């Protein structure tokens, strides 16, 4: 939040989301508390959700009285005394640790944020997610109050339709239209569900929003509930997100106390409440009908549509489902107006989209950009290019339902239709960047093994079809592929896409289809030449030690399970190719990166 109105000289805010905690933020928090106490600093200590600067976690932002701030990254408990002493005590910025300065947004790694446009993430990292007061202070719940006291449900839906926002869960269905269906569906009892079962590996924006700004999501749900006529909302959240669940519980409790949830909210005659349902570990429950089955206490197996949830959903009643990111954008749309949102983005894809940058990119984290940015802008301008100076090979978008786009597609605009035309999908917004050490066949195999693992087993094409595809890919990775395997993959992929019951099966072949489209040569290399150019597939590589750089530290010798590495101390070692099982354990042990896989 801007400034620090409560009279302290400085406000110190610690990024305290799952990423930060995983990177050691708890120790930093304790150190901060201890130092502030013992050093007698005039400091207001606070926490915030994830700012999205995952690559620099733990992150500390220090505000002065004027609201100017400096963001420090890679803070450890050991660095805390120095940080407080220099910045708070002496008023001197420690330049080496700076990620971003408010007065010079592009300095250091600041362009990571400077190149973004934050609507959904507008409060993430700025406010304390465990305090409704901070959310209200920056205008939170005003949109809901306005809608419930001065708008009709139809007006709310119109505003959302005007914004042009499309469902951020992956399918990209226009949200206003979807709400319209649910509104028009007959019946007094309707349900609203927030899909927070963020299952796509590589996507974590929903977690970040729930951890960093849970009230935005609740406000979006209140608006949606009012719009469609639902009095009960559910948030179906993964159990793997304990912090998000905890903060949601706190936020809901705060809302009850404020009268924002429950009977006659905001003094209106509208009643709406929200319950959290914890997922139990099934990717397929991200599918609407499976999610509803799971909320009903059944195995999460999808049902054929029609009937669509808008007509017959939870307990057979009209039900509307949107994901976290969609709900998080709604309060902004109602507050700022749908047209303002529609001004952002491309003709058919409005607004902003949050991407999770991960993989071999230099700056990993959350990137919210206007629709219409090119992939190059996202990966290179925001993400800072490829880590370790390697070469960009592909970006995987949309998780197991998506595809891999090669370098020649880097200038594709990020927009539902263009990405789909290129062979991937926007999906939930995961972007995993691959460099030349990533094997595309192996990546396809990885995704297939994921969908196969997560298939519910109900329909034939998904249950057996993806299994057979996976088996073919495994054979290829093991060097046992046959030339006709590519055709078999193509037949299966096509039929599985057409015949599967739900989107999990229907999109499962996508990673294979796009890699076949752009990286067919890698498949052929594996099948015909028994080679994995990326040096990834164990059966197709040989490991050897570069005698010039090897220091003879013998770290590799200790980990080799087959004693295939020999050599005198301090002398270059060698790997016995016969004995080597290519487990690559040695590869990550080598301090001098002398072990080469080819």
């Amino acid at each position, binding site marked *: 939040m801007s400034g620090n109105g409560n009279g302290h000289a400085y406000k110190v805010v610690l990024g305290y989301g799952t990423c930060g905690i995983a990177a050691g933020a708890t120790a930093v928090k304790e150190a901060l508390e201890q130092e502030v106490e013992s050093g007698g600093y005039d400091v207001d200590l606070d926490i915030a959700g994830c700012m999205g600067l995952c690559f620099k976690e733990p992150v500390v932002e220090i505000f002065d009285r004027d609201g100017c701030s400096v963001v420090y990254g890679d803070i450890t408990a050991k660095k805390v005394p120095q940080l407080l002493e220099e910045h708070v005590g002496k008023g001197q910025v420690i330049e080496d640790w700076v990620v971003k300065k408010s007065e010079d947004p592009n300095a250091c790694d600041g362009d990571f944020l400077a190149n973004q446009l934050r609507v959904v993430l507008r409060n993430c990292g700025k406010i304390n997610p465990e305090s409704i007061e901070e959310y209200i202070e920056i205008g939170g719940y005003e949109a809901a109050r306005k809608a419930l006291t001065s708008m009709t449900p139809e007006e709310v839906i119109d505003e959302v339709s005007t914004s042009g926002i499309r469902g951020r869960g992956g399918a990209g269905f226009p949200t206003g239209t979807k709400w319209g269906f649910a509104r028009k569906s007959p019946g007094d009892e309707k349900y609203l569900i927030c899909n927070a079962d963020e299952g796509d590996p590589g996507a974590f924006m929903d977690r970040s929003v729930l951890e960093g700004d849970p009230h935005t999501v609740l406000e979006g749900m209140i608006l949606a509930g009012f719009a469609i006529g639902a009095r009960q909302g559910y948030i179906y959240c993964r159990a793997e997100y304990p912090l998000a669940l905890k903060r949601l519980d706190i936020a809901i409790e705060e809302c009850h106390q404020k009268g924002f949830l429950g009977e006659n909210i905001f003094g209106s005659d509208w009643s709406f409440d929200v319950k959290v349902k914890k997922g139990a570990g*099934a990717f397929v429950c991200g599918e609407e009908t499976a999610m509803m089955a799971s909320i009903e206490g059944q*195995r999460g*197996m999808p*049902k*054929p549509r*029609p009937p669509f949830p808008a007509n017959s959903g939870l307990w057979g009643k009209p039900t509307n489902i949107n994901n976290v990111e969609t709900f998080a954008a709604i309060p902004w749309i109602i507050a700022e107006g749908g047209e303002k949102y529609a001004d952002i983005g491309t003709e058919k894809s409005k607004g902003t989209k949050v991407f999770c940058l991960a993989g071999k990119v230099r700056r990993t984290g959350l990137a919210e950009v206007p629709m219409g940015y090119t992939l190059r802008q996202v990966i290179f301008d925001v993400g800072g290019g490829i880590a370790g100076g390697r070469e960009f090979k592909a970006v995987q978008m949309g998780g197991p339902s998506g595809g891999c786009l090669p370098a020649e597609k880097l200038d594709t605009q990020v927009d539902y239709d263009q990405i789909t035309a290129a062979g991937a999908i926007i999906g939930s917004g995961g972007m995993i960047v691959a460099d030349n050490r990533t094997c595309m066949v192996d990546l396809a195999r990885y995704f297939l093994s994921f969908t*196969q*693992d*997560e*298939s*519910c*087993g*109900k*329909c*034939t*094409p998904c*249950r*057996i*079809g993806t*299994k*057979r595809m996976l*088996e073919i890919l495994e054979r290829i990775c093991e060097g046992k592929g046959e030339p006709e395997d590519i055709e*078999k993959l193509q*037949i*299966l992929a096509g*039929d599985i896409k*057409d*015949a*599967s*019951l739900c989107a999990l099966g*229907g999109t499962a072949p996508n990673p294979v289809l796009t890699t076949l489209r752009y990286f067919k040569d890698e498949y052929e290399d594996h099948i015909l030449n028994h080679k994995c150019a990326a040096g990834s597939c164990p059966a197709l590589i040989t490991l050897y030690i570069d005698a010039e750089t090897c220091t003879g530290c013998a770290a590799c010798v200790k980990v080799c399970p087959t004693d295939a590495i020999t050599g005198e101390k301090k002398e270059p070692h060698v790997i016995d190719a016969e004995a080597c099982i290519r487990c690559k354990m040695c590869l990550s042990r080598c301090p001098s990166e002398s072990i080469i896989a080819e």
Partner: protein
Amino acid sequence: MEQIKVEIDGLACEAPKGSTILDIARANGIDIPTLCYDPRLSPYGACRLCLVEVEGARALLPACCAKADDGMVIQTTNEKLERIRKTLVELLVSDHPMECQGCSKSGRCELQRLADKYGITESSFTGEVHEYDLHRENPFVMRDYNKCIMCGRCIRICREVQGVGVYDFVNRGFKAVPGTPYDRPMQETPCEFCGQCISTCPTGAIKARPYEDFGRVAALDMLRNACAYFKMPEEDMMKALGLESWVTRTTCAYCGCGCQLDIHVIDNKIVEITSPVMVGSGQGNLCVKGRFGYDFVSSSERLTRPLIKKKGKFEEAEWDEALSLVAKKLGDTKKKSGPDSIGVLSSARATNEDNYLIQKFARAVIGTNNVDHCARL
């Protein structure tokens, strides 16, 4: 009821509103293949064989689930649909032991029929196959999940029709299989051994065990092997052999619900009891007695000759001797003590015709109204 008009494969059809595409197609003689469909159950949409193309629809629709809308134009077959169906059957076959000869479902196995239709003897998509143990721990229901195609019909019929819930799917994905919790024998579940799961299983995964085990199978095996060999449905094979009457439709002799039975007889032995689906009061469902309780018909303890008690012991007699004796004794009693000194008990298990004759016998022949049956007991 409101009627809708649709076009299926160029044929104009009319049906009540709310009908599924499959309902309408079948009512009009258009065959859409299915595996997970049973008219007794709510539609499920898992096997995907009944996918059809509907003009203007974003995706292919499962005919078993999709309700037809007025004016729909539907294609149930074309190159794409048939290719998908062939792939689906090949996928199922790739995890199914195609040892039809020797499987007692041969000739009426729904998967076998489809494999024949698409000319599949082995799958081009080979890979891991399941190896489950054979379950034969109870006298009635035999389960061989290696033949299971995961249509879920057993689970659904047990829940939706029988209201019991012996099975559910266990695990998920490729590892999923219908089963009892912890693979417990069915006696340790609430199972009522109605055999509804047997009646709905489209393959040889769930079978009636009495008809597998008890030495009745030789002839049946030959028949079914012949069916498998000639790829002929059982009924056709029986017809070809001139044995039309081997299945007899009759009414169950147990409780009075009036279930229709198909008694399968070979060599004057009952080899299986089934019930025609969607026919009669049971709609194809039976109870343990109706499905498995007919051993008594061929019991070795059946009476085969008249018996006359002589000096406190029964001796076999000729019909003529026995009936003459009865006629004489009844006639003598009537003469001596009057017709009302004779009582006749008829049977609530005998047919209407027999009961009629028996009361007629009492009234017209003996001359007494002392005739009753165990209605009260």
